[in-house]
């Protein structure tokens, strides 16, 4: 990618993110308070959802990417797939941690305590712990191909487990998280959320691309190879 294209894309992304932030804090009206029929105890704090929701979604996308490249690695034994799986898992943990921390900030004002043992909150924390074990596993094996195989198998098993913990289990248990359609949100709120998802996805894709290229260079000595 030429520097001018890169600068242009960075400016587009920055402009998009700025627009989302301006919309989130100055355009979107907070939902009505509970006494007026609204579904949130702290309506003003709903703005943090523009950060929390995309981070949580991208965390799961990253775990699925780690699984997908894990499968590809087992089929082809191409170390590039191993690196892509590793970077996806790493970003999944970063975005997941971001979602968890922002969720706790939200929970503190909305539900009265930062930690509530809510099934989804607890599920995400367990999923992150499972992926931390993934890195421990990688660190414990020195031989690259063996490390790749074990990590791929782990990523393939960890992803459905994480998805079940975050999305499946909360459906069967009483949860503080709102279910889709439970609260009416304004059109501006929905559009800003869509913009935030888009902006976050762009940022995620860019970081993923850069991290993959750097890790490939450092680990495999690939030169000027753009994944």
């Amino acid at each position, binding site marked *: 990618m030429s520097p001018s294209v890169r600068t242009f894309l960075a400016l587009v992304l920055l402009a998009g993110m700025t627009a989302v932030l301006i919309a*989130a804090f100055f355009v979107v009206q907070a939902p009505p308070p509970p006494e007026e029929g609204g579904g949130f105890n702290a309506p003003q704090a709903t703005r943090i959802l523009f*950060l929390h929701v995309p981070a949580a979604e991208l965390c799961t996308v990253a775990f699925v990417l780690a699984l997908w490249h894990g499968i590809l690695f087992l089929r082809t034994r191409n170390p590039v797939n191993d690196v892509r799986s590793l970077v996806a898992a790493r970003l999944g943990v970063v975005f997941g941690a971001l979602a968890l921390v922002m969720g706790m900030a939200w929970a503190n004002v909305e539900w009265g305590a930062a930690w509530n043992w809510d099934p989804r909150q607890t599920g995400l924390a367990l999923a992150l712990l499972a992926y931390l074990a993934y890195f421990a596993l990688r660190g414990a094996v020195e031989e690259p191909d063996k490390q790749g195989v074990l990590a791929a198998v782990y990523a393939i098993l960890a992803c459905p487990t994480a998805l079940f913990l975050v999305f499946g289990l909360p459906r069967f248990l009483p949860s503080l998280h709102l279910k889709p359609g439970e609260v009416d949100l304004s059109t501006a709120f929905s559009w800003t959320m869509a913009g935030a998802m888009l902006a976050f996805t762009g940022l995620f894709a860019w*970081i993923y691309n850069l991290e993959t290229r750097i890790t490939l260079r450092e680990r495999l000595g690939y030169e000027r190879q753009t994944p």
Partner: protein
Amino acid sequence: MNDTGVMALGIASLLAWGGLWLYLFSLQKRLDRLDKEDTP
């Protein structure tokens, strides 16, 4: 929720977004340095 709480959440959001941007820039810088090292 009071204004201070909303302000704290706003600042936390900005820090998180800004942190991701700084991370992206640091990665780009690292890649550029690797590119430069590879150039004969």
